[in-house]
């Protein structure tokens, strides 16, 4: 009985498996939430919200689970995974922001349920400032 617990390998493997299961379950849950949001939400901007936030967290959790599996179970410390995780964490919200801005600039209407639009006044203010600068010159 005590020999199987020698060196503590047995318990550590179970702990690592529990960690992997928790991480990958979180990631799968957030991936499903992403698909649900993209299907059900009313307009582009809310869909961008679903696609940038929840899909970032989902893919981050799945990649962390894969990284932990290959590190502890196979003994491979893959540095490309670390770079990929950091890269996705930085660029995925930026991509969502770019698409939302491009959609607003091409004149796509917001949904009927929207109560507030801060982007329109900001754009008009910038246009007025540019015109004043041109007149001053």
């Amino acid at each position, binding site marked *: 009985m005590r020999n199987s617990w020698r060196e503590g390998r047995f318990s550590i493997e179970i702990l690592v*498996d529990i960690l992997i*299961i928790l991480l*990958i*379950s979180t*990631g*799968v849950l957030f*991936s*499903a939430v*992403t*698909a*649900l949001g*993209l*299907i059900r939400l009313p307009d*582009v901007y809310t*869909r*961008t919200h679903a*696609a940038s936030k929840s*899909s*970032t967290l*989902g*893919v981050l959790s*799945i*990649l962390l*689970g*894969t990284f932990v*599996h*290959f590190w502890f179970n*196979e003994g*491979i410390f*893959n540095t*490309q*995974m670390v*770079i*990929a995780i950091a*890269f*996705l964490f930085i*660029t*995925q919200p*930026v*991509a*969502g922001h*770019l*698409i939302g*801005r*491009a*959609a607003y*600039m*091409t004149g*796509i209407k917001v949904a009927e349920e929207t109560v507030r639009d801060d982007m329109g006044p900001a754009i008009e203010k910038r246009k007025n400032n540019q015109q004043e600068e041109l007149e001053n010159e």
Partner: protein
Amino acid sequence: MMMFYWVALFIVSISFAGLLFRLVKGPTVADRVVALDAIGVTLVSIVALLSLIIETEFFLEVILLMSILSFIGTAAFAKFLERGEIFNRDPR
């Protein structure tokens, strides 16, 4: 443990099908670009789960490459939607 990976891959594939529905149906171009971006990210997680199932570490290089390509494609599409061109030759 292998059964858990298969179930996870199954659920992620179902959400992939949902994103494909938005890609086909989406009323505007921006909707399709959002769906394409999410498809790239979901494809990355599918590759990670596949490398867990097949038990090989050679797929892990694909993950970094696909995330970079997905971001560049999305940025190019956003710039194309906003300005009508991708490569701007006029220095401003």
